Each structure stands twice: as structure tokens, then as C-alpha cells.
């Protein structure tokens, strides 16, 4: 397994604002990596630096062991968030042009462009002016022009965020095929997309990396048992619940180590307890509930989802 790109201490500041504050990560060849984070976290800035469109304030990017000097552009295919083309060109002409800019001969570029237009499902519109394309078609055209020189790394900025559900599904389907063939890096603020497509995820927040790793291992490592409890809405039950939570929180503060419950949150009349040992916690809770004759509506035992982790990481 070789590293396609290594990023070390990448920083970008605009005036006094630090958009990206020294991030490090490595993308392995053949992996699909999601750059995940809320709006304004620095995803687009990072991506633009990788593609060479933006000069970093400091830090290094190493492609195949060589420092980035602009030649990395040969390795990269880039699809921006809302790609702008020349509206007076036809779709096919644009992809051919993109190919020729990457150093292909006119004949090679034409052959490859036709193939790609077919592949992204635009062959019926290949001879139409780009000005008349819909948002989803432009996104697919953007993919075709990014892939024309068979790049080693496909970089995409929010590839599906601006699309309607149908267009989204089309593009996600294409990406699922593409990640079999090339290394993919894309940014998104939708956890679900990352979970569906990617091997690795890099979660960034306020310009820094909050968490990174393989999705499966993150899920494994950060999975914690939780108990969700919902009671009837009569006064007695609710009173008991709030006193129980207060009691638990006090116990946690007194002795964090031995307490069964690590976190207790009450939200919309649903109490969520993050627990250490599921068996002991469940037992103790059930005993308390029966002793106090609390009217339980719902009691659920499960595990934290990636969504919970994401929310916790980006809002912490």
C-alpha cells in the first residue's frame, strides 16, 4: 500500500483569519476518502490547495514522494462544487478540450471523450450546448472532464450537495463505480454520503482535523453502548426521571471511574445514557424502575451511531 499524497502541516490564512490550521493526512492509493465537516470548516480551502488553485500559507503536499510544484495537476482530476463551463461549447467539445489541455492529441481526446460521455449518461446530449444543461447534467459533465486524462486522484468538492434527490442518486452511483478504478477524495457535509461510499474519513472542524481514520475502525473504536429511556408524561414519572438524571450526574462527578453511566442527557423527554457496561447498567436501571413503579413507555438498548459521533466531534 503506497501513499498517493501526504499532507503535512497544511495551513492557509486569509489576512488574519486562519481557514486551515496545520492539517496532516495521508491518502493511500486506491482508497476513497471523505473530507467531512460542517459548512465553513475549511473543506473547500483544503481541496483548492491540493489541486493547486490556492497557494498554501505554509505546509507541504507530497505526491508520490515528490513535493508538489504544479506538476501534481497531471495526476489530479478536479470537480468543483458548482462547475462553470463555456456555455457556448457543446458537452462533447468541452471534454475534448479538457483532454487536449492535459496533453492528449485531438484524436485520442475525442475517442476518450465519447467514451466518457457515454459512461456518465450524456451521450444523448453530447452535441447540445452546455448552456442548456441542467444542474445534474453539468455535474456529470464535470465528472467526465475530470476523468478525461485518467487521473490517479479524483478530487471533488461537495459533488452532490447542490443536486435534487434524483441527480444525487445518479452521481452517487457513478462515484461508486469510479472508486473501483481510481483514488477518490471528496468533501461533503453529509455523513450519510461518506458512510455509503468511503473507506476513510477525515472529519475537520474550524480548520483542523477533529478525527480521521478508516470508517470501520472509527465505528468500532467509538461505539459505545447506550440506553434510551422514555417515560409517560405524567408529573410523577417526569419528576422521577429528572431526579434520577441529577443523581447520576452527581455520581459521575463524584467518581467518574466507578460510575456505571458515563453521560446522561435529557432531550425531548427522552433520556439517553451512555454507559460503560451494558449488563450492569441495564440491571440497575430496571431495578430502580420497578422499585419506584415508574411508568415506562419505551426502553431501548443499543449503540451510538456514527451520526452521534459526528455531531459530538463537530460541536464539541
Amino acid at each position, binding site marked *: *500500500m503506497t501513499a498517493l499524497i501526504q499532507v503535512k502541516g497544511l495551513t492557509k490564512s486569509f489576512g488574519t483569519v486562519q481557514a486551515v490550521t496545520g492539517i496532516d493526512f495521508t491518502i493511500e*492509493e*486506491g*482508497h476513497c476518502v471523505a473530507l467531512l465537516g460542517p459548512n465553513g470548516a475549511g473543506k473547500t480551502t483544503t481541496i483548492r*490547495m491540493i*489541486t*493547486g*488553485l*490556492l*497557494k*498554501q500559507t505554509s505546509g507541504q503536499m507530497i505526491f508520490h514522494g515528490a513535493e*508538489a*510544484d*504544479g*506538476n501534481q*495537476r*497531471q495526476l*489530479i482530476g*478536479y470537480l*468543483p462544487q*458548482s*462547475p*462553470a*463551463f*463555456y456555455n*457556448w461549447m457543446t458537452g462533447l467539445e468541452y471534454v475534448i*478540450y*479538457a483532454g*487536449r*489541455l*492535459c*496533453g*492528449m*492529441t*485531438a484524436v*485520442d481526446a475525442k475517442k*476518450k471523450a465519447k467514451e466518457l460521455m457515454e459512461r456518465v449518461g450524456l451521450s444523448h446530449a453530447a452535441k447540445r450546448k452546455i448552456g442548456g444543461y441542467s444542474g445534474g447534467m453539468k455535474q456529470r459533465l*464535470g465528472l467526465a*472532464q475530470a476523468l478525461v486524462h*485518467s487521473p*490517479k486522484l479524483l478530487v471533488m468538492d461537495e459533488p452532490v450537495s447542490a443536486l435534487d434527490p434524483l441527480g444525487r442518486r445518479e452521481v452517487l452511483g457513478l462515484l461508486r463505480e469510479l472508486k*473501483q*478504478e*481510481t483514488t477518490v477524495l471528496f468533501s461533503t457535509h453529509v455523513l450519510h454520503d461518506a458512510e455509503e461510499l468511503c473507506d476513510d474519513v477525515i472529519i475537520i472542524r474550524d480548520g483542523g482535523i477533529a478525527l480521521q481514520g478508516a470508517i470501520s475502525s472509527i465505528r468500532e473504536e467509538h461505539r459505545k453502548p447506550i440506553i434510551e429511556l422514555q417515560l409517560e408524561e405524567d408529573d410523577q414519572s417526569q419528576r422521577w426521571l429528572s431526579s434520577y438524571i441529577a443523581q447520576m450526574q452527581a455520581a459521575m462527578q463524584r467518581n467518574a471511574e466507578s460510575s456505571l453511566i458515563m453521560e446522561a442527557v435529557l432531550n425531548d423527554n427522552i433520556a439517553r445514557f451512555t454507559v460503560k457496561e451494558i449488563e450492569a447498567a441495564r440491571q440497575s436501571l430496571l431495578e430502580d424502575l420497578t422499585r419506584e413503579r415508574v411508568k415506562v413507555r419505551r426502553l431501548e438498548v443499543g449503540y451510538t451511531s456514527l451520526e452521534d459521533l459526528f455531531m459530538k466531534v463537530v460541536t464539541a
Partner: protein
Amino acid sequence: MSVSAAHNGNVEKRSFNRTSEIGRFAAMVEKELLELLRSFKLLWVPLVFILLGIMQPVSSYFMPIILEQAGNLPEGVIANMPKPQGAEVLAQTLQQFGTLGVLVLALVCMGVVSGERNSGAASLILVKPISLYSYIGSKWTAMLVLTWGSLAAGYLAAWYYTGLLIGSVPFKDIVSSLLIYGLWLTLLVTLTVFFSTMLKSPAGAAFSSIGCIAVFSLLAGIFPKQLGWSPGALSGFAYQAVSASIMKGDYFGWAIVSALAIIAGALAAAVWLLRRSSSVE
């Protein structure tokens, strides 16, 4: 991981015949010209120049009749009006190109870089492995084709009608004045490309470049001794080249050299400006 191993194999095999930087540059020039053609600029800009070129000899020819029809001149004035020389008419034509022609060219070129940058189309092009010199250079080349083509068409039309209606002018005078005047318009177009890279607003770019050209001309006109070597003197040299045998003083050579230096400087500065915002190359 078998998938990625298979994929690596594919990548090694995919190599296609690469064209050189020249090939990419040619592709970009081709695209710019196609854009000029599809937007009909390659049609109407030469037409404007041809119209301007024809108007001068025709209006000079009919001037006595026009004045007669206006009818408020004393007897004998019209009969005694000297007929203009062919060379004079052509010099006046160049002056027409210097006002309306300059305006048209600046308006056509003003959004050549800023338009693509504002729409975001430039970022899709600049991530491709191309040199910024090719990017600016291709736009500049296409604009020069338009400028020289329009100027030549308009000026030759003027020459033809002057020959028909007023009096013939030797072709070599036409060529020399055309070359000198072309350099003057090249300077204008280059400055417009530069300002279009520097400023976001196309109107600002047109205004700035026309302003520069006007200041050049004005300075060379006010201080002909001190600034006769400046590019602003070029249009004057072009009028001379056609109307009288050119007074090839020491200054003429210097005016050409200074114009070429400014052109080269403006192109380099445009590339520098573009690179400052990105790390490409």
C-alpha cells in the same frame, strides 16, 4: 487488496501520446478563436473597421456636394476648396480607427480574462496541467488575430476606395503605416488583457486601457521633443508613414522598442498577477 492492484496495472497501461506545451497552446488558441467566431465577434468587428475605412474616402469625396447642399457658404468657397490628397484621407482613416476602432477593440477584449475568472470557468481550466503563459498567451494571440485582421480589412478597404475616388497611394506606404498602426493597437489590446487580469470588472478594464492609451498619446503630443521615443508617438509615425515619407529620426526606432517593451512587460505582469493567487506551476 486485489482491486487496487488491478487498478494500478490499468493506470500504468493507460499512457497516451502526449503533445507538447505547444500542442496545448494551439488547442487553447483554437478554443479562443472558436469563441470569437461563435459570438460573431470575428464577423462584426472587421465589419465595423471596414465601414469606418470606407466612410472616410467616401465622405471626403462627397464633401463639396454635402457643403453645397447645406448652402450657407459664400459663393466660390466650394469651388476653391482644395481636393484632399489620397494619403491625407488614409491618415484620417487611421485617426478614425484611433477613436471608434480603439473603443470597439477595448470593449471586445475587456472581459477576456476576468469573465472566465468571475464565472469560475477559469478554475476548471487552470487545474489542468497547462502553463499560465499559455493561458494568457492564447487569449492574447486570439485577440491579436482579431485586431490585425480587422485593421487590415478596414485599412485595405479604405485604400481601395481612396484609389477609386480620390487618388492612388503606393502600396508600400500602406504596408508600412499598417504595421506601425498595428503595433499601436497591439499595445492597446495587450493593456486590455492585462487590466482584465488585474480587475474584476470588465468595464474597469476597458476604461483603464483606453485611459492609458489616451495618456500615452497626450504626453507624446504635448512633449514631442522629450517624449518622442514613447509608444504614444506611434500613431503619429503611422500618419507620417502614409502621408509623407516618414521622418525616420532616431526616435522612431525607440518608439517601437518602448512599445514592444511595454507589451512584453504587461503580458509578464498579467501572468504574475494570475499566479499570485494560485500556486500552479
